[in-house]
């Protein structure tokens, strides 16, 4: 029996020690040294991708970037627990989840470079594109789950959102629907303590995990910087959903170590001591300690992991900088699935307008040559 009490579940201590726990351990029995090392590699690589993307923004190659620094365990642990046919409905910060899903790095940053409103086809990776309207995607996940339920398949929807989103009507309505219809959906809340400048206390006077039981949804409150606890909790929730047990709510307690986005300046509202404290709970650090004690970390492993991360960063940078700008007339593409006369007229008018420029430009060119 899983204990759904609101105690924080931690299976890996800050010091890197494995904490045994009878109800959770069976769900992570397969996480041996090599399996944990694979998770560690993922976390190192996505941190490097995240850092590179921040640098690309600073260099003017990206318009904006929402860093996930500090949330690697929450995202990698949950994403790696999913089956290929499960479907993900993320917010805009789940770039590590997208990485696990096999989204091309260039496609991850496409939206942040301003080239398109999304970077990938959701159906090819079973992951929706970033949702910027806070919490809206939780309803989409619930609806997808209702569809899976009606199709009699055991695929599960998982939706990611933050502590701030739990205040939105959409998220609460999603929980009402999910409970009412016992939809196979996992609500994965990364409580990273901050909604831009607002500490989590503005959104909730009790633990966020406490809210779900009131909707009739079992809830787990886990250390979100502990990749083992995240993996276990996500597997438990997925299994409940797959076997007709309905929705589960997971509050992964983590920390947004960076700014909300590259446009934000946390020094205006956040005590640096808080960040320093959370750095001691770094998700990579503690997993590295465990792996070291397991003898998995060797100079060769370190070098190979760093090389992997560097290669990912290089691929991201090259893909980002080499991305061609969209063609002007593509502004009219994909507004409707079927032809639209009004829009076609606007497209034709604008094409004519652009051509008139070209003609003027050409004649000016000819005049200069003459």
């Amino acid at each position, binding site marked *: 029996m899983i204990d759904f009490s609101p105690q924080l579940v931690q299976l890996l201590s800050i010091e890197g020690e494995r904490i045994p726990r009878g109800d959770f351990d069976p769900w992570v029995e397969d996480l041996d040294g090599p399996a944990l090392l694979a998770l560690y590699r993922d976390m190192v690589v996505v941190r490097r991708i995240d850092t590179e993307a921040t640098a690309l923004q600073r260099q003017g190659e990206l318009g904006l970037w929402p860093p996930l620094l500090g949330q690697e365990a929450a995202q990698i642990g949950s994403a790696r627990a999913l089956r290929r046919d499960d479907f993900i409905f993320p917010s805009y910060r789940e770039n590590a989840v997208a990485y696990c899903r096999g989204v091309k790095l260039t496609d991850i940053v496409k939206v942040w470079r301003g080239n398109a409103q999304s970077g990938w086809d959701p159906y090819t990776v079973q992951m929706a594109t970033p949702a*910027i309207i806070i919490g809206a995607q939780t309803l989409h996940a619930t609806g997808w789950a209702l569809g899976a339920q009606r199709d009699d398949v055991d695929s599960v929807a998982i939706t990611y959102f933050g502590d701030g989103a739990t205040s939105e009507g959409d998220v609460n309505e999603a929980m009402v629907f999910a409970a009412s219809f016992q939809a196979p959906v996992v609500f994965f809340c990364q409580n990273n303590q901050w909604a*831009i*400048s607002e500490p989590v206390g*503005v959104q909730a006077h009790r633990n966020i995990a406490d809210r779900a039981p009131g909707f009739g949804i079992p809830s787990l409150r886990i250390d979100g910087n502990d990749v083992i606890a995240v993996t276990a909790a996500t597997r438990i929730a997925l299994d409940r959903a797959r076997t007709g047990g309905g929705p589960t709510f997971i509050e992964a307690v983590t920390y947004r170590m960076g700014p909300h986005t590259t*446009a934000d300046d946390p020094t205006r509202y956040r005590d640096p001591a808080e960040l320093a404290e959370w750095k001691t709970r770094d998700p990579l650090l503690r997993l590295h300690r465990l792996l070291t004690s397991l003898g998995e970390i060797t100079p060769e492993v370190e070098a190979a992991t760093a090389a992997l991360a560097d290669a990912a960063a290089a691929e991201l940078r090259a893909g980002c900088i080499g991305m061609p*700008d*969209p063609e002007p007339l593509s502004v009219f593409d994909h507004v409707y699935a079927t032809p639209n006369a009004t*829009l076609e007229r*606007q497209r034709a008018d604008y094409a004519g307008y652009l051509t008139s420029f070209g003609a003027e430009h050409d004649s000016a060119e000819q005049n200069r040559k003459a």
Partner: protein
Amino acid sequence: MTPLMTPATVSTVPGLNAPQPIPLSETKTLTMGKAINEGLRQAMLDDPRVVLLGEDIGALGGVFRVTSDLLAQFGARRVIDTPLAESAIIGTAVGLAYRGYRPVCEIQFDGFIFPGFDQIVSQVAKFHYRTQGAVRMPITIRVPFGGGIGAAEHHSESPEAYFTHTSGLRVIAVSNAQDAYSLIRQAIASDDPVLYFEPKRRYHVKGEVVPELGLSMEQAVIVRPGTDVTLLAYGALVTTARDAALAAFDEGISIEVIDLRSLSPVDYAVVEASVRKTGRLVVTHEAAQSGGLGGEIIATVTERCFSYLESAPVRVTGFDVPYPPAKLESCHLPDLDRILDGVDRVMGRR
């Protein structure tokens, strides 16, 4: 029995022990964002019933810093960092207004207003009518709007027509620092609900500001007189329209540029007088063309000034597309060349 807290008792709530910025008392050069900040400050000093609600408006001072330092000056009972729930921001403002407060809501970005749309359209706009005037809704809803800043989706929209189509709301859009200051004070003082649109790409543009209420927020203003074409603009495009008029002047076309300021109601007296003089009309806005304000204004002017028109009025607007990604926004947004193209059309040059 505990006496009910009346609005008047709120004034005794002290602010935090922070330096109290002195309100604007003389002409100063301010950015548009700072001008709104000063207008809010003065409104809060003038009336203890003015309270601010919004996301990140406290310690951060809002994502555009428009509410900077107001938390320190007036305290958390009047500058309220709300949970992330736009429907609740508007809906609780209705309750505060019910009790005699004058709430000023900040919606963080144009595209985030829609979770609050139901409360605005179904409640804020209708309460006065519903109660036959018994309940007033002196609510100001500040909305940074428009594009041109290379932002992500939902951060560059122009949703004003949804609100001009909603009876019971006043809608204004400011274009410069002076109006930003004067009109935020007028909006807050108004007993009607006001949607106050702030063109976010002009937040950092400086202008002289005198601490006066100035012209009524209902009045349109001729920002550049002319005789050949009437060019209507609001928000960020007023500057673009003025630049277009300068460029056209070099080509021998005299454009009268009007800053509408009020989008609902539109100041048709000023618009009609201008069209009767020029005989030609161009309306520009960033919002999509179909169902936009330009169509409504042109229809009204055509009804009233048909015999004065020398040519068919023209709209120069955003396309009928969702706001495009940043790399395409320069195609979508009306710029100087597209406005001049519209001017050429009403002049019969194309």
